[in-house]
């Protein structure tokens, strides 16, 4: 799991859990009372704060006073310089049934990770759905005149810079196993597709053709990369092996093709083309052939991203995109049965670059207000938007990790 892999990346972070969980598959938004934790007051306060935020961001729970909530949590923390221990019990009040009773241990610096693990267990136990509290988001960190890649926790904390190139590093995309990120780098002056291995920090040049090399996106099985190259005289869509080589050209148009995203089954690639005059969303088989246009209106649709919800999920695969309407950019969902785009984030700001969480329910996107860009989360079920902690300089082009 991605969880274990991040241990290597982050260092000595470790979490163990002993479980007496009673699985109770129920679905929907439920009232949840966080009573807090006994023990060291400072640690208990932090654990409570992170837990409340995680439960709220999960979308499955409405925080409520413990006296009136369907589920109520109690617990205790213990911690010193050497380690942290969190015990948590969750009870369904009406039935007096303990639905979760677990203890978690981690290093002292590891408090947020420990609570994220606890939250995902609560979500899994009560809803049967996969939580997102342990996931990561990659993004472009604008620092003065340069753009660097960074990775942070899904809730916007623990942001770490990945590149220190003092150049332009943009459009990150994760490998399905969470180990690698491919992106577009101008560090050698021309836009190249590079790959960084998050275990080792090693970088590889994947595509350095004349002209534009950009938009690299892993297939769901991680074996193939779709990308935009202009080496043949026009920005066109190609696929190549993730290990290098085996290049195939998919499109032959007079317009520009960009921003590929793989269909959930990995058999087709959805992308942007302005061959019809304005940018719209198109789809083509991964082997090439005839392409078909998906969106007709509004007159400008870009940055498609397919969700890939887990097999047991309540969510269906959905295609998120960015539309321009009345000079403003908004996030929309494409309805394949009607061909219409349903706006889900449409306000006075510019909202761009949606990227799905692995639960197929949450999106991260970039919102620009007064020419400053920051990242927000959207729960497409509740429609709730949450601003992530602001990043100095600005954050854009987010990519939610697996």
């Amino acid at each position: 799991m991605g969880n274990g892999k991040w241990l290597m990346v982050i260092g000595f972070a470790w979490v163990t859990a002993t479980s007496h969980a009673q699985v109770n598959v129920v679905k929907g938004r439920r009232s949840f009372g966080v009573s807090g934790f006994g023990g060291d007051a400072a640690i208990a306060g932090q654990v409570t704060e992170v837990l409340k935020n995680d439960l709220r961001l999960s979308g499955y729970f409405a925080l409520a006073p413990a006296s009136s909530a369907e589920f109520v949590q109690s617990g205790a923390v213990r911690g010193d310089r050497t380690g942290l221990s969190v015990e948590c019990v969750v009870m369904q009040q009406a039935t007096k049934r303990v639905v979760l009773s677990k203890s978690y241990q981690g290093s002292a610096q590891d408090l947020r990770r420990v609570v994220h693990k606890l939250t995902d267990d609560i979500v899994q136990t009560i809803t049967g759905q996969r939580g997102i509290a342990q996931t990561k988001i990659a993004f472009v960190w604008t620092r003065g005149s340069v753009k660097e890649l960074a990775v942070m926790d899904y809730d916007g904390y623990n942001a770490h810079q990945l590149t220190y190139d003092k150049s332009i590093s943009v459009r990150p995309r994760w490998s399905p196993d969470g180990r690698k990120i491919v992106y577009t780098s101008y560090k050698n002056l021309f836009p190249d597709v590079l790959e960084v291995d998050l275990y080792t920090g090693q970088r590889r040049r994947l595509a350095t053709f004349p002209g534009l090399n950009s938009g690299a996106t892993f297939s769901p099985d991680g074996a193939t990369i779709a990308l935009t190259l202009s080496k043949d005289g026009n920005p066109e869509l190609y696929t190549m092996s993730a290990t290098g080589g085996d290049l195939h050209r998919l499109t032959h148009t007079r317009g520009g093709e960009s921003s590929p995203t793989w269909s959930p089954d990995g058999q087709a690639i959805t992308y942007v083309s302005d061959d019809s005059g304005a940018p719209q969303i198109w789809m083509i088989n991964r082997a090439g052939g005839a392409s078909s246009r998906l969106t007709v209106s509004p007159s400008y649709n870009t940055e498609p991203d397919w969700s890939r919800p887990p097999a047991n999920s309540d969510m269906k695969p959905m295609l998120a995109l960015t539309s321009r309407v009345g000079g403003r950019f908004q996030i929309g969902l494409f309805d394949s049965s009607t061909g219409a785009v349903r706006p889900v984030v449409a306000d006075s700001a510019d909202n761009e670059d949606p990227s799905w969480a692995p639960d197929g329910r949450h999106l991260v996107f970039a919102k620009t207000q007064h020419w400053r860009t920051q990242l927000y989360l959207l729960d497409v079920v509740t429609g709730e938007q949450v601003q992530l902690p602001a990043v100095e300089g600005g954050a854009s082009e987010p990519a939610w990790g697996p």
Partner: protein
Amino acid sequence: MRTKILAQVVLMAFIAAFGLTGCKNPPWKKGTSGGGGLGAESPIAPLGPGGETSVGPRPMVGEGGLPQSQFQPVYFDYDSARIKPSEDSKLEAVATYMKSNPGKLVIEGYCDERGTAEYNRALGERRALAAREQLIKLGVDPSRMSTISYGKDRPVDLGHDEAAWAKNRRDEFVVVNQ
């Protein structure tokens, strides 16, 4: 001059191969066994040609990056990569220079800040390629020209109005390796 550029290229290659030493370690690297910052890039086996390569090879550029443009920028309409008739004379000036001087031409395509980032990278590339097509028709050897799209990055005017955007929707022309 040529020796100096060659020395710079060798230095660049050296930096590319062993680069990033001396960079600050990312905080998350603490405690991992590898140590150091992001590793050096290791080139992979070169990709075979996927069709005729019609975009000219990249010129080698010294450590200082590209020099300033010495020509008038070519401007574009919003969301368009079409060369307007008003811009033709600027391209003719570039072509005239290239035909009577040595060196390679780098055509840089830029967009204004409105619109999504990756789409604008493709649009900026189409703007650069549109100028390249016209310069080929004007007699410039295609193998002497390469393109860079910066998309929305590196605007020349930091304003947020149509006057600024009009200046940012542009191609710039840089001569290197003279």
